[in-house]
C-alpha cells in the first residue's frame, strides 16, 4: 500500500470531525456580522519561549487589499471543506490556479494554507493539501526543454515526476509509444511498472501515468497535452469500480466544475474509460457495499451534465450498475482467484481496446 492510500484511509476517520472544525471557524466568525474576523495562528512563530502569535484577517478592513485577503482566505477555507467532504487532495498550486485573479501570488496561498493547518493543529495533508506535484509516470517518453534539448528519457521501469509543462515550458515526446494508460491509483501503477507492463510484447510499448487519486494540475495538463498532440495514440484510463473512480476519470476527461476557466487547457476528451468494469470481478468477495456517501456521490453524478455526453455513456451505465447492485470494488483485486491478477486482466482488456481503437 502506498502512502497516499494510507493517508486517505486515516483521514476517512477524522475528516468529518475536521470539517466540523473548519465550519466552526466560519460559524464563530458570523456571530458578529458587523465586523467579520478570523484569527489564525501564525505558523512562523514557533519558538518554544514565545507564545504562538496570531494574525487577524477581518472584513471590512482598512482598504481594498485587506478585503481581497479576506476573500482569499474564505475561498481557501471553501476549497479545504470541499477536500474534506470528497476526500480530495489538491496541491497548493491547484488552489492558486483555481482563482488566479483572487489569489495575488502563490506565496499567499501557501501561507494561508499553512496558517489554517496551524490554527487547527493538524498537518497540512490532513486538510487535503499537499505541497508539490503528485503525478508520476513511467514507460517510454522523452522530455525536452524549451530549446528542444532532451532533459529526461524514460526507460520503461523508472518512475519520474510528471513534467511541468505549463510553468517550465517542457515538452513531451512519445515516439514509438503504442498507447498511454492513465491509472487512478499509485499502488496499481507501481505493481504494473514493476511487472514490466510498459514493455510487454503482447500489449505494446506504453506510457503509464498516475495522478494518485484526484489528479493535480500538472498531471491533468500532461494528459490534456497527450490527448491533443498525439491524436493517433490511444489514451486509456483505468480506475476503481466505485463512484469516485468514475468521477476521477470524468475530471481528466471533462474537467472539474471548480476549474471551468482552465478547462480548455486541462481536459483530455480522448481519454477512454476501459475499466475496471464492475461486472468483471470473478468472485464475490471482491465486492464491497456502497456507503451512504458512495450512493449520494453516484446519484449526484448521474445528474451532472457531463454524464450525458456521448463519450461518457459507458461510465454513466457503470454508475447505474453500482447503484443497482449496491456494490463497488477496488481494481487491484480484479482477476480470478488463481492469481492472474490485474496485470493479466489489463493486458487482455488493453489488447481488445487497441483492436477497437
Amino acid at each position: 500500500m502506498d502512502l497516499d492510500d494510507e493517508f486517505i484511509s486515516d483521514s476517512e476517520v477524522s475528516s468529518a470531525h475536521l470539517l466540523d472544525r473548519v465550519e466552526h471557524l466560519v460559524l464563530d466568525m458570523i456571530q458578529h456580522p458587523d465586523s467579520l474576523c478570523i484569527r489564525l495562528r501564525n505558523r512562523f512563530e514557533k519558538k518554544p519561549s514565545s507564545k504562538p502569535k496570531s494574525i487577524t484577517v477581518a472584513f471590512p478592513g482598512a482598504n481594498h487589499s485587506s478585503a481581497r485577503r479576506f476573500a482569499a482566505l474564505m475561498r481557501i477555507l471553501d476549497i479545504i471543506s470541499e477536500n474534506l467532504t470528497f476526500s480530495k487532495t489538491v496541491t497548493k498550486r491547484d488552489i492558486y490556479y483555481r482563482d488566479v485573479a483572487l489569489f495575488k501570488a502563490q506565496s499567499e496561498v501557501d501561507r494561508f494554507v499553512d496558517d489554517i493547518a496551524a490554527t487547527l493543529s493538524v498537518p497540512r495533508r490532513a486538510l487535503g493539501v499537499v505541497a508539490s506535484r503528485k503525478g508520476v509516470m513511467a514507460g517510454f517518453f522523452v522530455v525536452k526543454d524549451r530549446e528542444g534539448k532532451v532533459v529526461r528519457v524514460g526507460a520503461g521501469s523508472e518512475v519520474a515526476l510528471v513534467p511541468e509543462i505549463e510553468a517550465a515550458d517542457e515538452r513531451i515526446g512519445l515516439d514509438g509509444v503504442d498507447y498511454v494508460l492513465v491509472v487512478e491509483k499509485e499502488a496499481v501503477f507501481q505493481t504494473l511498472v514493476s511487472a514490466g507492463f510498459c514493455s510487454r510484447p503482447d500489449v505494446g510499448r506504453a506510457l503509464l501515468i498516475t495522478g494518485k487519486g484526484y489528479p493535480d494540475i500538472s498531471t491533468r495538463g500532461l494528459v490534456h497535452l497527450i490527448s491533443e498532440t498525439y491524436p493517433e495514440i490511444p489514451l486509456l484510463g483505468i480506475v476503481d469500480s466505485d463512484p469516485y473512480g468514475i468521477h476521477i476519470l470524468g475530471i481528466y476527461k471533462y474537467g472539474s466544475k471548480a476549474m471551468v476557466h482552465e478547462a480548455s487547457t486541462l481536459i483530455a476528451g480522448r481519454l477512454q474509460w476501459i475499466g475496471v468494469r464492475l461486472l468483471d470481478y470473478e468472485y464475490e468477495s471482491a465486492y464491497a457495499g456502497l456507503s451512504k456517501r458512495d450512493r449520494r456521490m453516484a446519484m449526484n453524478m448521474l445528474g451532472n451534465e457531463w454524464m450525458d455526453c456521448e463519450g461518457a455513456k459507458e461510465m454513466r451505465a457503470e454508475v447505474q450498475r453500482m447503484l443497482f447492485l449496491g456494490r463497488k470494488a477496488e481494481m487491484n483485486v480484479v482477476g480470478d482467484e488463481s492469481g492472474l491478477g490485474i496485470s493479466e486482466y489489463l493486458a487482455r482488456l488493453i489488447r481488445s481496446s487497441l483492436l477497437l481503437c
Partner: protein
Amino acid sequence: MSKQYFSTGQTTGDHPTDIFAVATTPEYVVTVTGDSIIRIYDALSPDHQLARQIHTPHRTGIHHLSVSKDADLISAVGFDGSISLWTLSEGKEKSIISDTAKTFWAVAFSPDGIYLAATAIDGNLTVWDVRGDDPEVCGNLETKGTPGLCIDYSNDGRYIATGHENGGLYIFDTETSRLSYSLLGHTSAVRTVAFSPLSKLLAAGGDSNVVTVYSVKSSEMVMLLPGHTRWIMSLDWNFEGEYLLTGSFDKSLKVWSIDQKECVATLTDAVAAVWNVKWTKTGGTGRSQGFVSVGADKALRWYREATGG
C-alpha cells in the same frame, strides 16, 4: 424430468444500457433501462413489436417497475429515488411520488391495483392508496435500516414481503399493518422475493446463490434450491405455481420444479449478468407458457416451452 424451452427471439437495439427490470401482463411486456423511457411491447404479436413508449422525468434512468393490469397502472422507480405512476393503456402521467429525505427502491402493486408498496434505501416500507389523483400514504413500516432491495405483494392481498441488503427477509400483514415474520436463512443481500400464486409459499434469492422457499403460514423454510453459481437477481412463479424461474449474475436462467424440488432447465443465452426475469402471463390463452429475461447485455429475450414433444 427436464423441460425444454426454446428462444423465440430477442429484442436488441432498443435499450441504450442495461435493462434493469421487466414486467408482464397478458398483453404486454414492459421494460425500463438506463434512460428515462418506459417501453411497452406487444406480447401477443409474433415479432413482439414495440407498442408504446412513455417518456418519464426520471432523467437519471429507471431501475424498478411494477404493472397492474386491473388498475391500468405502471409504476416506475428512478435512480433519482422517486416513483412515477402512469396509465398502462395510454401512457398518461398520473402522479409522481418523491420525498427528498427518501430514496425509494423497489415497488409492487396490490393484486387489485388499489395499493402501491415501496421499499427504500433507509430500509422502511411505505404503502399508498393510489386510487385518487394523489397517492395517499396509508402505511409506514420500519425495519432494521438496511436498504430494501426487493418487494412482493401476495395475490390474496394479505401480505407484503421485503428483502434487504443485510439478509433481512420480512413478511408484513396488511390487515394488522404489523410485521408477521422475520424469515431466517439469508445472511447476505436478498435481491428478489415472490409469493406463490396461491399465497402459500414465499421464494427468495440473493447473494447466497441459493433459492429458499418458505411456508407463509408457519414461516419455516420448506425448500432449498442450490444450483446458481453467483447472485440470484430475480425469481418468478409461473401461472400455476408449479415452476420457479430464476435469473442470475452467473448469466444463466433456471427453471425449478416445485414438485421435484430441482432444476429442470438451464438457459445460457445471455452474454452478461441477468437482472430480471418474468413468466409471460399468457396462461389461459391457449398458448404454451413462456418467459422473458433482461439484463446487462441490453437484450430482451423471449422464450416458450416446447410442447407436444
